[in-house]
């Protein structure tokens, strides 16, 4: 029993004890001096009780008891009535909290068991329930889009591909993708009412931040709901490309025209004969292009070369090229005879396997037969595929520290141009050139924790930057506090609460270019998607079942009224004794 008594405010013990002693002495001295010795012992007892009870009120003595813990029921969106009813039947006095009303959560620490019904607790509130015993009973998800995936940042000419999953569509219902102006771009019609995966496609026409819409209609064409789809279409940035050629080929000629026509800065060095070259400058200034050195190479994002031209470089030039690739991230595309790919010294990074066929249909380009060399790239660690045909790799690259070196075994693709298949040609070379080119390294890169950002809900983001003490401001120039990662000094996290819907902005004060645009949805947008996300998060979070020890003993404070009564008795005694 001794062990069972404790003070809740035990930290105050000594100060309270000193006060108690002082008060006791003062009262004693007063009693002793004023009233002789009559009833003195009675008075002393009264004084002792009164002062002690005051001290106890302050110290809050508590007794360990086997507390009977309560159970809590939290109702969230789309809970099942049946589950609620049966729980209530089981636990008559269960406390019910309605999470939907957006009130602050009750104290959940001292609850024996929590039942959560419905879609669950939003991400940002889940930490409340860490290490608590929670039973999560998922609710039912309504019909609608439950999974949505698309590239939020693209550039004009890119194809926007929206992959999504639709739960329980109505038969004959349809889904329409609309652009910012409301033009219908693509649609899906649900012939059967089953769970469907689908893709919506469109080509992006112009740059800027736009809000597309996905509209759901029933079989009669009535609009059921419309959800915004933010799309960031960035500005195109031109590449600087150097083409080295030991002899002219059609492939290079057409590639050169394609790249120059779309506006890239192009320098072509074509060998006409021994020691004589033809220099061509497209969309750029006529500069002197002597030997390749650090300064010259810094001006380019990509070098397209045949193996002969690389072989003909002096060792100094080769070193400079290697350094530019490794340190600056320059890309090299080696074209030409695959046999000579292995004779390039440091630039020979690919291993080839022979195949019998010289015709191929690339994955992702059905219906277009292309010529290829009778080789394929050997799949190995570090080989990043660009184009494949079934399982054979035809275009790929390898990383050399910051840079990339790549090749393609496709041949005579220029015939596509002649055959009028411009789009295929453009797509093939766009993929190759884009993958290999030097990357733009932003001073700050932003990484939102979730793409579903709602009004008045916390939005957490990560920022990677080399800036020493970055200061992040929102669109109204409010400073957002950042937290630095313990292990990685370049990583910062911050949290903000968007107050309005629409496009919002975060920027780094030190660098005006580092702007991050994000879209804030209205609370009513993407209900099903949000519900499904929450449900999955909750399912994962509450998968471990913790059951609290039912017999746990808890210090329970003795009701201070007792001490107050004691105090009154003491005081009353002191008042009454002189009257006796």
């Amino acid at each position: 029993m001794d062990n069972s008594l404790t003070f809740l405010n035990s930290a105050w013990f000594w100060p309270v004890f000193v006060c108690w002693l002082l008060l006791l002495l003062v009262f004693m001295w007063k009693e002793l001096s004023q009233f002789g010795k009559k009833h003195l012992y009675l008075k002393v007892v009264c004084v002792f009780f009164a002062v002690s009870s005051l001290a106890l009120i302050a110290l809050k003595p508590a007794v360990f008891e086997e507390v009977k813990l309560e159970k809590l029921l939290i109702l969230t969106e789309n809970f099942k009535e049946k589950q609620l009813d049966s729980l209530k039947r089981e636990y008559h006095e269960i406390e019910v909290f309605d999470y939907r009303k957006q009130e602050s959560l009750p104290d959940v620490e001292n609850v024996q068991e929590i039942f959560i019904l419905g879609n669950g607790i939003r991400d940002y509130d889940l930490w409340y329930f860490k290490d608590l015993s929670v039973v999560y009973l998922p609710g039912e998800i309504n019909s609608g889009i439950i999974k949505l995936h698309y590239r939020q940042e693209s550039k004009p000419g890119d194809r926007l591909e929206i992959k999504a999953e639709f739960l329980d569509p109505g038969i004959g219902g349809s889904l329409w993708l609309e652009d910012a102006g409301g033009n219908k771009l693509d649609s899906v019609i649900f012939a059967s009412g089953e769970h469907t995966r689908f893709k919506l496609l469109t080509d992006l026409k112009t740059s800027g931040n736009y809000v597309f819409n996905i509209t759901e209609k029933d079989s009669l064409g009535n609009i059921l709901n419309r959800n915004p789809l933010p799309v960031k279409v960035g500005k195109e940035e031109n590449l600087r490309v150097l083409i080295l050629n030991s002899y002219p080929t059609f492939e290079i000629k057409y590639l050169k025209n394609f790249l120059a026509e779309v506006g890239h800065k192009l320098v072509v060095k074509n060998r006409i004969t021994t020691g004589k070259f033809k220099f061509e400058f497209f969309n750029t200034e006529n500069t002197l292009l002597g030997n390749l050195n650090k300064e010259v190479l810094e001006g380019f994002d990509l070098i397209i070369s045949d193996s002969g031209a690389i072989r003909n470089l002096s060792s100094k030039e080769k070193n400079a090229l290697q350094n530019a690739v490794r340190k600056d991230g320059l890309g090299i595309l080696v074209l030409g005879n695959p046999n000579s790919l292995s004779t390039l010294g440091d630039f020979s990074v690919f291993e080839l396997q022979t195949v019998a066929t010289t015709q191929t249909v690339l994955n992702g380009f059905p219906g277009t037969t292309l010529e290829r060399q009778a080789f394929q790239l050997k799949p190995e660690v570090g080989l990043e595929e660009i184009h494949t045909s079934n399982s054979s790799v035809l275009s790929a690259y390898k990383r050399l520290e910051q840079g990339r070196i790549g090749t393609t075994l496709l041949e005579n693709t220029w015939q596509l141009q002649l055959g009028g298949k411009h789009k295929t040609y453009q797509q093939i070379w766009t993929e190759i050139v884009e993958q290999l080119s030097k990357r733009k390294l932003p001073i700050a890169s932003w990484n939102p924790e979730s793409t579903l950002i709602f009004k008045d809900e916390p939005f957490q983001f990560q920022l990677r930057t080399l800036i020493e003490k970055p200061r992040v401001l929102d669109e109204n120039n409010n400073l957002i506090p950042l937290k630095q990662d313990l292990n990685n000094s370049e990583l910062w996290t911050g949290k903000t609460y968007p107050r309005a819907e629409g496009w919002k902005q975060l920027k780094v004060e030190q660098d005006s270019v580092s702007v991050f645009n994000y879209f804030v949805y209205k609370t009513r947008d993407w209900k099903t998607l949000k519900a499904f996300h929450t449900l999955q998060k909750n399912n994962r979070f509450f998968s471990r079942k913790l059951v609290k020890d039912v017999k746990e003993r808890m210090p329970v404070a003795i009701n201070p009224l007792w001490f107050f009564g004691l105090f009154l008795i003491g005081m009353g005694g002191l008042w009454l004794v002189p009257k006796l």
Partner: protein
Amino acid sequence: MNKNGKGILISFQKRWQLLLWLEVFLYAIGAAVFTWFFSFNLLISSCVFVIVFIAVTVLKRPWKIDLQKVTGFIDRKCNKLEYSSGLLLKSTEELSGLAKLQQQKIAKEVEVESKQIRPEHKLETAGITLVVMMIIGFLGYYFGLTNHYFSKEITIPKEEILVFRPTDSTAEKYKVPVLKDQKLTINYPLYTRLANFTSSKMDIKAVEGSRITWELSFDGEVDSVSLESVGSHRSLYKNEGSYTGTLVLESSGFYNFRFVDTAGVSYVSDLYAIEVTKDKAPNITLEGLKQFNSFNYDDQKQIDFSAFITDDFGLANAYIIATVSRGSGESVKFREEKLFFDNAFKTGESNLNLTKHIDLNEMGMKPGDELYFYVEALDLKQPQTNISRSETYFAVIKDTVDYGAGVESGLGVDLMPDYFRSQRQLIIDTEKLISERDEISTEKFNKNSNDLAFDQKALRLKYGQFMGDEAEGGNGAGSEKATEDVHEEDLLADYTHDHDGNNEHNLVKEDDGHHHDQESEAEDPLADYLHNHGDPESSTLFTDNLKRKLRKALNIMWDAELHLRLYEPEKSLSFQYEALSLIQEIKNSARIYVHRIGFEPPPIKEGARLSGDIGEIDNYRKKEALERTDKYFFMRKSILRLEELKNSNFEISKTDRELFEKAGNELAEKAVNEPGRYLNTLQQLKQLADIQKNGNKFINEVQKGLLQALPNTSMKPGKQSGSGGKLNSLVLKELELDGQ
């Protein structure tokens, strides 16, 4: 008597009813005419007519006039009848004696009186009402009182009324001149025979060359009115209070009006489309005809076909251009003729179904000649007519001699011996003989026929020699030996046409059959049975197949000769043709063997490549800017700007308006081809650029239109953004080390 009296009463009753009906009609027509002047709407007038007609009918009740009423009326009007006309209605049997007397008396009276008594009516009142109503209506119309009611609203539907908006929003405080009347007249070109068209709708769709006249009148003083079309600007002239302007349509485009009021404030209207339709060229379809028609020399050389020709505004003319070509190579001659269709042609018809019968003989065509023809049709378009022509059709009379010309080109020199041609000469001579039959004596005819037979025989023998089997032929004509002997010298000289090439090149030895017989036997008795390839003289020149053909030809020549001998050149002729065609086949098959010589380049010495003297070769530098300028730059910018405006409450600034104007210009360039499609967006852009107008819905619509007009962008590789950082590069370095 009784019946007579009753009959009079009935006719009186009918007259009365008729008058009442007439009265009803007059009231109704009066009301209808009156409303017509106010509404100019047939429907309203007819409704009024029906309503009034029914109302007055109910009041007058013409059907209520029965015989009782008639007798009552007559009795009242005429004392002479002593109130007894009712007796006339009853049959004589029912009446008492006295009544019978009275009835008879009255019957007489009624006959006289009924002519004097007029049925009660108010026809005059009705007539006067009609006239008065017509006059009031007409006067109202004449003095324009009626305009206030219907007519204006009906002439210009609300959506067609030109709406002018001030370009400066401060202008609102002035009194704005109001457009009173708008009129657009399209005078179609005369040849289209379309009536002139007047409308209040300002969008124009008309045929090229139409004359457009605008007429605008304003309520209030206006300083100037002008018409702005894509890039151009023309003033409208003031003419009797209204502003008019005309334009001859040449190309599609847009226009809008702008007027400046006396206070110097300018107003613009919406944008309207001009869509010019071109007068299409006539469309010709020929039926019942193959593209290539070939006839044999003995076919019915006739062509029949029909031509369907249609045009949108009527045809001016249609005919056939036929060209006959004769000969080949350098000696080819052409003759062109213009043929008309068999049916009579009516100018101005837009649908024609014409037929034509062409007889090649009538056109003077011979075997080997070719006819090319096509149909040409002209429409009525002014000043430059549209001409269209059908495909060219061919008709060929097969040449009996020369076919398979395609093979000939492979060989520069004709290697075949020329005497093969003499069969043709024989045919010509035979035909000549047949045509001369009536002119020459039978004796001469027979002789000539026999001579030809001899020629035929000679030819046959020579072919036989060519094949290497002269014996057969030589012995074949034993019976005529005598004749031959007699004529031997002259016959050969006169009729074998040596100059025509029987044996000009001496490819075959000319000798006498018997003689040869003996010689060959003497030289080599086995010659006939051997295929001696070593000796070119004795080898047969043909393959087995050809040999068979030649043998067939020789047999046919036998028949030809036979009929000539029998003095039946007509019968012989068909065999001769057959023989000729076989010989042609042989000739052509022999020509297939052509030497082909290609160009063989000398082999390239790889080692010597790129090692020549390059002293004078220098580096070459070239600079070019290939980047295409973006035709839709401002349209793109506008779309982005509109997106920003949509989601905020920004005011449209001056720079925005300039941007929208430039975007409008870009769109207009694109829209010229399809004005109808982009017109709405163009109008809205103009409104955005000129006047203060916004609102999310409006902006959304403009953006939608612009996005729709923007073509898809082609793919373009761009710069991707990567992630840098110390950690990143460290990892990459480590990875590579691991790899090695």
